[in-house]
């Protein structure tokens, strides 16, 4: 490394300054909150819809090929 390179390196260090390697805050409480977060519950309305769809399929099974083709 030439003296010019060393000078340039010094100038860069001086201009940019040291990088912040320390954490600004503790991240563990956020992680714990994320882990304890409850998964979104399925609303009753969606259960009813799923039940109605299943019932329709059981009552009218001959529509299954139509559904396989169109959906």
């Amino acid at each position, binding site marked *: 490394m030439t003296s010019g390179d060393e000078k340039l390196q010094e100038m860069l260090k001086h201009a940019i300054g040291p990088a912040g390697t320390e954490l600004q805050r503790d991240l563990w409480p956020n992680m714990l909150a994320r882990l304890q977060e409850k998964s979104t519950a399925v609303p009753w309305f969606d259960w009813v819809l799923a039940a109605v*769809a299943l019932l*329709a399929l059981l009552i009218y099974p001959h529509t299954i090929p139509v559904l396989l083709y*169109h959906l």
Partner: protein
Amino acid sequence: MNTHPYVRAYMGGIATPTMVLLIVLTAFVLARFVFAIPVPIERAIIFPMAIVPNLFGVWNMLYLWLRPHQHLPIGLHGAILPFILAPSGYALGRALNVLNLQSNGLVYFQTLTVAYSHMAIAFIFGLIVYYLVWKYFVAFFNRVLGIG
């Protein structure tokens, strides 16, 4: 940095129908080659195989594009899709001569007649399934891909 959100939306959209396609394809193959049902299923299979997953991908891209302008819940956005798929399937079926219109209902492969009342039930079933699939499955893949 370009994070290609529309490519991710496309991928998030096609994931669910691609998996379901395995079931559809298995049903088609079993019907044709195991139970030897004498209908040209391979003529009709292009619709669920090629068009439906791609349409899911494009529809999810549209959802991402529309989101800043108007926020329609993803389930309702998905429930609009059968209004496009049903007539498209019908038009393709007519073009490929696998679907005919008769006074008592639609005739698939010149063998399976489905009454119009049953078609209406099938359509409502489709709306419900699409609503739930988009609300839970496509939304899940969108979250996984960071666009949810």
